[in-house]
């Protein structure tokens, strides 16, 4: 009995154990890995990815996803940048970024929630549209010299990079949403069984709209940070970033069939991928090979996860179903 409790505990924290093992392995593989400089660098690089991972996690938990987030990031980023360049008001630039993100995602939400278009299709369309608008607006050219706007991506507060602090704040907010609000609980219910959630009096459409709105804000914020880090408004930037977000969420244990996922797991998932990329750079793995390894590891990690979960679950189900628990 004790033994099974232990395995259950291990299973629950398996993702963090993987992260720990990886951390140790990386520090053995390269002497540079464990330097404060390198670790801070990893954290800074991960910022945009983690924001997108939260966005995808919110949606996957409730049974949806967003393929347009990379493009929406670019669109809101360039619009924020050009707002800043003409007004020099940071708050205004950020507001524009959020607003653009929200508008794009409200369109997504209308199709997903009102017209029942599969999220995959609706957001695939938005991916093209948002990218198109970004390129049209800029004429395909990068917007250069952002002035103080770069602080958002490159600035420091004491020893801490600004984007890291922003992501920390967002992490706390998203964690709170999932663990301490009715909205968060509703997401799990909707993703776990939408019909049952509806029959239990949850306004599923409203929750879907709120989710996409939050995703819009996250996309806008990520867009602003992304452009600031690169010191330019790049309409062609962040292509394929939706996959970065999806990967982190999935590796972090978010179930693609909905209803399961945690913020901490997603953070761990993002760091696992971040460490992997970092160590491969440090030990000089060819970047084409890197891509191959990354792809393989992602699929394997999820396959293992699903396998161990389904085994555990069938065991549990059989055990309780076939032998009534005489508590």
């Amino acid at each position, binding site marked *: 009995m004790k033994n099974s409790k232990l395995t259950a505990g291990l299973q629950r924290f398996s993702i963090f154990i993987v992260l720990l093992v990886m951390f140790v392995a990386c520090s053995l593989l390269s002497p540079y890995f464990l330097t404060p400089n390198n670790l801070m660098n990893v954290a800074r690089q991960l910022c945009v990815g983690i924001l997108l991972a939260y966005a995808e996690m919110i949606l996957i938990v409730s049974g949806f996803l967003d393929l347009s987030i990379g493009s929406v990031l670019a669109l809101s980023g360039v619009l924020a940048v050009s707002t800043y360049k003409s007004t020099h008001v940071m708050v205004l630039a950020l507001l524009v970024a959020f607003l653009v993100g929200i508008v794009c995602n409200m369109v997504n939400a209308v199709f997903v929630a009102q017209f029942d278009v599969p999220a995959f299709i609706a957001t695939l369309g938005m991916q093209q549209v948002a990218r198109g608008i970004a390129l049209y607006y800029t004429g395909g050219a990068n917007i250069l010299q952002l002035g103080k706007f770069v602080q958002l991506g490159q600035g420091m507060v004491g020893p801490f990079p600004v984007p890291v602090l922003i992501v920390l704040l967002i992490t706390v907010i998203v964690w709170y949403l999932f663990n301490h609000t009715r909205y968060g609980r509703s997401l799990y*219910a909707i993703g776990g069984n939408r019909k049952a959630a509806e029959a239990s*009096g949850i306004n599923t459409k409203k929750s879907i709209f709120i989710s996409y709105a939050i995703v819009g804000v996250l996309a806008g914020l990520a867009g602003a940070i992304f452009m600031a880090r690169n010191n330019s408004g790049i309409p062609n930037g962040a292509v394929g970033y939706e996959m970065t977000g999806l990967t982190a969420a999935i590796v972090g244990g978010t179930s693609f069939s909905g209803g399961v996922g945690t913020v901490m797991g997603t953070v761990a998932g993002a760091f696992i991928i971040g460490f992997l990329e970092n160590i491969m750079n440090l030990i000089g793995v060819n970047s084409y090979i890197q891509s191959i390894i990354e792809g393989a590891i992602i699929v394997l990690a999820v396959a293992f996860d699903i396998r161990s979960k389904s085994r555990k679950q069938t065991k549990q189900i059989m055990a309780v179903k076939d032998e009534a628990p005489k508590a």
Partner: protein
Amino acid sequence: MDEIKLRVEGIEKSFPGVKALSNISFRVRKGTVHALCGENGAGKSTLMKVLTGLYKADAGQIYIDEKPVEIRNPIQAREYGISMIAQELNYVSELSVEENLFMGRLPVNRFGKVDWKKVRREAIKFLKEENLSYAPDQKLKTLTVSDIQMLEIIKAITNNAQIVLMDEPTSSISEREVKLLFEKIQELKEKGVSIVYISHKMDEVFRIADDITVIRDGAVVSSDRAEDLDIDTVIARMVGRKMENVYPKEILPLGDKVFEVKNFCQKGIFDQISFHARKGEIVGFAGLVGAGRTEVMRAVYGLDPKESGEILIDGKPQTIRRPEDAISKGVIMLSEDRKEYGIIPVRSVTENASVASLKNYFYGGMSHKKKEKEDVGRIFRKMNVKTPTLDTLISSLSGGNAQKVLLARWMLCEPEIMILDEPTRGIDVGAKFEIYKLMTDIVKEGRTIVMVSSELPELIGMCDRIYVMCQGLITGCLERKDFSQEKIMMLATGLLNTSDREEER
């Protein structure tokens, strides 16, 4: 001495931490119906899975025609002539009748191309032989659940089976189809086919079983000829204690009319549905499968649209457009479809129980999870929900316990009017009794219950008044003193119509 078709000797099966089957032995005679009775979780389904090769037994031996056999997988089971009708139907709703009939064994020519002409020919022949009125190219989703169940049953037993395992075959078919099924079983018996029959419905078991084996906690309690047993004995052996009273009904003084539904219409589904319920009353809805009872309740609860109709609570008209409106007005509905509209399988029992009353645990921007656990724990204790912990996934609970969790969900909403649609479907005798007791407690607290059920004995046992529906219409309403199975069946089949509306005409 009768010929033994199937002999099971000393079957053992353990799962980590639990012994599901211990030393199970019984004999099934050729050409007889052998009923397996036991509560949910007694081990019947595990035993079925061993017999069809889905599980490997840890010990023991299976004999067919007194020859030891080893059944490693379902395909082998089929080769040994064992066929199974599962409780949960397996079919593809997007495919046609004929495709489902021939699934996994479509005839092909030598190039591997499916011989559709042959499929059509054989399907037509088959449907005609079995007197089924569907077209072979009809998609399964256009059929009703009971049609599909009949199709599955007939498919399984015409598969040249020698031994047919039936797990709750009548759980979603109407009385008329049950009769058809029993005729079919009789035919099979005459052909020398043996049937292992699992059911919670005792009256059915006694109608067709030749032998009855009772299983409790994974072990055989007794195995006797049916004529030597009676229902009470079997139930007592199943639960391991004597049941004093199957229906703990208490006649209470009734209060005011608290709930009234007037003239509900939805074209082609139900028409001019009017009923009411008093405070402290249990009102029943009887009818055949497909009479429209569930549809009416779903429309009342705001889950389905309606064309017209009014709802009055405490005499005041109310608008209910969605379930959340209903809940906020003290009306809840326990759905008959536990899987689709009830259980959230990937979440814990606690989250499943509190999902309809989240506003009590999340307010003012804060969560109150301690209160949530306390409330859920309290209601679980009251309802005797058996769960290892409050964080256990609901999907690992037995049917009866899962149903109690769903009832707990609604109890936490503190409703005034509870619509319970088939509250005891597919759950074992012990849990049924507990749900009846709970219903009695609920009305004692001054709440009101509207119960839809396809089991006449439970309606007659528990209700104060029963409405009967037939083909989308209410054909009558009976007071408790006038209850009788015959009368209800007459109304349900449309042979009799005593509704006021009809008289006025």
